């Protein structure tokens, strides 16, 4: 492990700063229970740490962050896909699922860049 590697540094910054934002996205945009969101955030961080070391992964902080946001949205979406018998009642979550993870990931990234909070659950 090279602590001076710029990609390593970017990963550490993202994991330290963005975990809260990821969890909030799962709760607010995807309506996940807090406990479930916390568990998935931990798994997403573990996954992201390895993803950053795959060949073919971009190295800039912005692009790396987008990889994490993008997978977060896929995971949130699949959470509801797996609950065929339950539909979310929350209007924000219904909109999120209707637009799909790619568009939501883009929105979440914009929000992050503008330093905005996720919508209220």
């Amino acid at each position: 492990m090279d602590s001076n590697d710029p990609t390593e540094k970017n990963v550490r910054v993202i994991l330290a700063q963005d975990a809260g934002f990821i969890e909030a996205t799962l709760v607010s945009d995807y309506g996940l229970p807090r406990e479930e969101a916390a568990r998935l955030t931990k798994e997403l961080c573990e996954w992201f740490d390895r993803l950053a070391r795959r060949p073919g992964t971009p190295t800039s902080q912005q692009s790396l962050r987008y990889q994490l946001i993008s997978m977060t949205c896929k995971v949130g979406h699949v959470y509801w896909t797996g609950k065929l018998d339950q539909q979310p009642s929350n209007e924000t979550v219904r909109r999120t699922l209707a637009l799909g993870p790619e568009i939501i990931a883009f929105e979440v990234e914009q929000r992050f860049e503008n330093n905005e909070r996720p919508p209220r659950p």
Partner: protein
Amino acid sequence: MTGDLVHFPLHSETLPRSEARAAAARVLDIARNERADRERELRLEDPEQLLAIAELLRSRLEATPTEVLADSEFFFGFLEKPIRPIGRFDEREYYLGEFGLLAGIACRLLAFREKALLWLDRAESHFVLAHNSSAHVARANYQKLAVRLEQRELAEVAELAERWFRVFVSLELPQDALKCRFLQAHALKETGRHNEAILEFEQIKSAAERLRNDNLAAIAAENLFQIHAMRGDVEAAVAEAEFAGPIFRRLDNRVNLAKLQVGVGYLYHSQNRLKESISAFREAQKQFAEIGMHADVAANHLVLADLLLDANQPAQAEWEIRAALPVIDELTLVPEGIAALSLLRDSVRRRQIDRQALRSLNGYFEELKS
């Protein structure tokens, strides 16, 4: 995105990153037929260890391609059946793609072109289901393009390399983009546009040094060495060899060390030092044989045959050709190559070697030596 693609596996502790590389090296030291029986003990499903194994295999591609092929096939098979949850989310698909890609690259280095393309297709079928799939599909397509270069589809390579170059730039993957320029430079070299090829390889070498990619810089230097050697520009050739050689030795890049040795043969040849040239090609041939690059061994037989004819040793030359023919038979040649092979075989039967057919056939191996 469907529910099939993102797994929610059971929790399990993965190996700490600090231990994974040593553990991966130990796994690779164990005979393949023993590994599957000891899968739990060896933690073969551990995603951190799988990442380290893939990295180790990648670093060994140009030292022991035959071993890398066998190991990549092993891990691909292990992950494919039975279907087992691996790591988090997309990791099973990614690792299947990565081991398929490694197998494809190893096959390409060993000149098993059809098998290489099959492995690259297998890799792609898993990569499309992995996260960041466009980058991985692009990586697989770069390798397919490299196979096309070896099949001497030079015009297609020049066009498609430019397209994939732009793809890699937009994906923020500068090293992969640079590798596409390599293919373009090779196409220039193979079509005899040596001045343009020199310019391009020099730019690639500088860019690789800026990106701190020593291996890529050294491969660019090795190509410059070969061009200068063929042209008899001794001083320029030697300078490039002195740059590339120590890097290849440090990285244990035996594939390119052997190719460098081929350049030494050409350098002596350009100086009409026939005896030294033959010795250099024989040494290159020995090195290719040690790493299992049989097509390159055969290509060297043909070059040696040509040199031995120059040295008035027709019987020895005939022996070299006879040694090469069985290997060439196993390779997929373009129609022109098949025609040259047929002419050469007939001439050997008549014991009157057709020099033109020999050189034409050797031309179809040119990429294997570059």
